[in-house]
């Protein structure tokens, strides 16, 4: 077991886990954040995408130990003050989520796009989401939902706490103590 501290959805977390575990497994199994899904665990489908220091990554290809001192945003962190993110509202309203299994990956990937480009074109949206597979929708309603979230003036790409890059990656803190999961109340 190793223990790391990181920021998950704007909350500081300390978590202990077996060193071979991927970030995906740490999130789902050790932090009880089951919103992040898996479809292949080989980096092929995009279902497990999360934002790591603001960048979309496939959490099945990132080792948990690599995340010490870093910021992770999952679908659970998109809701702020009880309000859905504009992308979430638009996905729900416009049929962009059918079975909903790939949806968390699409949402965070789209959020990274909007954080980077305030007003992407349809082609830029296609390009940004090309690593996420959806077998239900045919993508069209997903494109439309992203565009609708942009059109919503209030909060698309709104800076959230997660966007303030406070934390600095600290490889020193990859320690190797015994075990005991000590994480935030949210994670429990």
């Amino acid at each position, binding site marked *: 077991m190793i223990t790391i501290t990181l920021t998950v959805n704007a909350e500081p977390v300390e978590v202990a886990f077996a060193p071979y575990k991927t970030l995906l497994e740490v999130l789902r199994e050790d932090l009880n954040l089951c919103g992040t899904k898996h479809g292949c665990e080989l980096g092929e489908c995009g279902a497990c995408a999360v934002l790591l220091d603001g960048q979309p990554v496939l959490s099945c290809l990132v080792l948990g130990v690599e995340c010490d001192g870093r910021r992770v945003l999952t679908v659970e962190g998109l809701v702020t003050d009880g309000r859905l993110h504009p992308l979430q509202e638009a996905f729900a309203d416009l049929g962009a989520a059918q079975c909903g*299994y790939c949806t968390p990956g699409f949402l965070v990937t789209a959020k990274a796009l909007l954080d980077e480009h305030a007003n992407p074109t349809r082609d830029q949206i296609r390009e940004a989401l090309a690593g996420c597979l959806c077998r239900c929708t045919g*993508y069209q309603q997903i494109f439309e939902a992203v565009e609708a979230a942009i059109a919503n003036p209030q909060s698309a790409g709104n800076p959230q706490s997660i966007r303030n890059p406070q934390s600095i990656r600290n490889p020193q803190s990859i320690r190797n103590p015994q075990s005991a999961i000590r994480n935030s109340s949210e994670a429990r």
Partner: protein
Amino acid sequence: MKIIGTPRRRVDGRAKVTGQTKFADDVMLPRMVHCKLLRSTLPHARITRIDTSRARARPGVYLVLTGQDFPIPYGILPVSQDEHALAVDRVRFVGDPVAAVIARDELTAFEALDFIDVEYEPLRTFSEPEESLVHPEPRIHEYGDAGNIHKAVSLKFGDVEQAFADADRVFEDTFFYQGNTHLPIEQHAAVAAKDPDGKLVLWSSTQTPHYVHRALAKTLAMPAAHIRVIATPNGGGFGGKSDPFNHEMVVAKAALMLDRPVKICLTREEVFYCHRGRHPVLMRFKTGVKLDGTITGMHVKTLLDGGAYGSYGVASTFYTGALQTVTYHIPTYHFQGCRVFTNKPPCGPKRGHGTPQSRFGQEIQLDKIAESLTIDPAELRLRIVEKPDTLTANYLRVGTIGLSECIRRVTQAADWKNTFGKLPHGRGVGIACSSYLSGAGLPIYYNDMPHSGVQLKLDRSGGVTAFCGATEIGQGSDDVLVACVAEVLGIEPIDIRPVTGDTDLTPVDLGSYSSRVTLMMGNAAIQAAERARDLLADAVSKKLSIPKERLVFADRRVFDTEKPDTGVSFSEAVCIAEALFGTIGTTGSYTPPRSAARYKGGGVGPSPTYSYSAAIVEVDVDPSSGWIHVPRVWIAHDIGRSLNPTLVRGQVEGSVYMAIGEALMEEQEFRRLPPAMSHALVHKFPSMLEYKSPTTLDMPEVFTELVENPDPRGPFGAKEVGQGPLLPVMPAVANAVYDAIGVRIDEVPITPEKILKALDAKAAGTAPRYGPTAFPDIPWPEPLEVPPPWAGGDGKAKGSNPQSAPQSAIRNPQYGVRP
């Protein structure tokens, strides 16, 4: 109507975008242990020895199970009970489950698999259906029509030979449809546990909890009443989660033995082995036509590569020949279908179940006929569309048909008149049409009970709980349930809690397959809601002294239509009714109308009503590389009525998406390992990276037209939409390729390589096509002769017992043992 027909956020929309939908692998229970399956490394072999002692001795391993623990077979169809949870003495494909390890965590279980010693005696491998036809021995199964032929059928409706003689032209074409798989993003997962009173609970990613319930009762020899199956929302199904599966039986047994929750989540590779996907089908179409395009007769032959087990295969076989007549008028019709076993993962039902393959052949052949007769292909189809309110040659009762309108809408939207045959070389457009069931007319195991049941509980809070066994697989079945109830009771969808897919809590619904849920559950929901409305209306009428027929249910109120201010809130109405009648609960049921087909095999194809689609596809083909790009698709779908247009559009576009994948890239392919290794027949690419499926960059722009002509048999007039719109797209792509570069690709997937080969053939002066030419000899049974309705037929086969009916085979609604 306030709710029906209005685009809305689906009732489970918030859960899906917040990551709160609880899928099977999200079920985490205290003391839960984990299961892994050992799978066969040989495609066909006898198990001569299996020793689990070393695995059992591993630290952290709690239990190892083998085929000896599962002596009772199961299978989705009563006629194909050919699966064991773990192989008993024989493995039939690479990936067939042989043993299971249950351990403290996944890694421990996985590592212990290496310590199970299995010795095999290899048997001949059947890799292609032609081999299975030629070699009856060794038999892959000890049942079936003969040798390795699982099922061979021949159904003849009228004098087809005479029809060919009477035709002005007769066309014969051979086509091949490659197999492909569902590829739901969610891998199959299941958790089993003993509940506190000692009964079994199984959470599973299944489309058919009712059938899993039956299979568990059978294989575990347990009273069904002591088994609870909860279908968690599926992360995509598309037919791939419609069978009872090995892993479900295994974790159920292990949980009972260990008295601890047991979880299994399949890897992506294992999902490819579960398969039950599209059958590879070789087909021969022979069609006689008059010079005006009228069809005089059709003879269809199909050969299905079934893979290693029965699954839905008997039904799939009949489906390759069932729906041709529902789309176009075919006065005489002969269908011969044959399914063989091979040593590959079992094929089964994928979106469109058995019909896309023959639809592909039929629609390309129509394109060839149109060209040959110099009739515009859209015009040809308009001439031959089946008439509404018709009994077809094979006794399928067609109700409303919106196909002509679909054709008119797409040709107009795509500017067909100015594009077909008129685009520059390399660009082309193609058209095709289709029809599909709105629910199978007969259940999988024959019985006279309803196919769907809905129960409502009305509460003095004003809330309503709607219970139904239907399974949410992403298509929006919970939303349909809620919408139908809300519309009738005049309340909002959010006021209703759907409780679905739980065999303990919900009345039986047969499951999310054959596009049956909207029509069947919807009708049951309306009946239950109308009964509730009736009770409330009685009570309010008495209380307020307003004639019952003047009461309106709308805006969460019950009021006098003549004096809208006089009335009560919905929750007050429930209180008044509860005071008067006691606890308020109602039920609704739906049973499809009796089929007119009274011949053996007539159980596949009947439906309460059929949906229709027409599609035009535009392609760009680069003749130098063969590269195909699909920029745009126009599709019109006869939906009857849209319950929630947002979801209907999603189903249409999702169907087009999946069809583009099947047309251009998806294939379930196999290869032999080198002889120096085992020479085993293995899946060519059991991974999402190499099994190509369309990404955001491959997806064409889709223009959807919904044709709304309410069908009296549908809930509020609705028909299906989940499967039908997939069907016309693949042949429309093939027809567009011909329009673009003048070569016929008579098989899917249509790859650049095949296009180049066809162009080479054209340049060499041979037939400008790529595709199969030969159809093997098959020992067909004597045809069952059924005179069509216009030849004085009554739906029965000639010489059959007058009492006989398609239901006569098996009548055993009981399952499991009695408590």
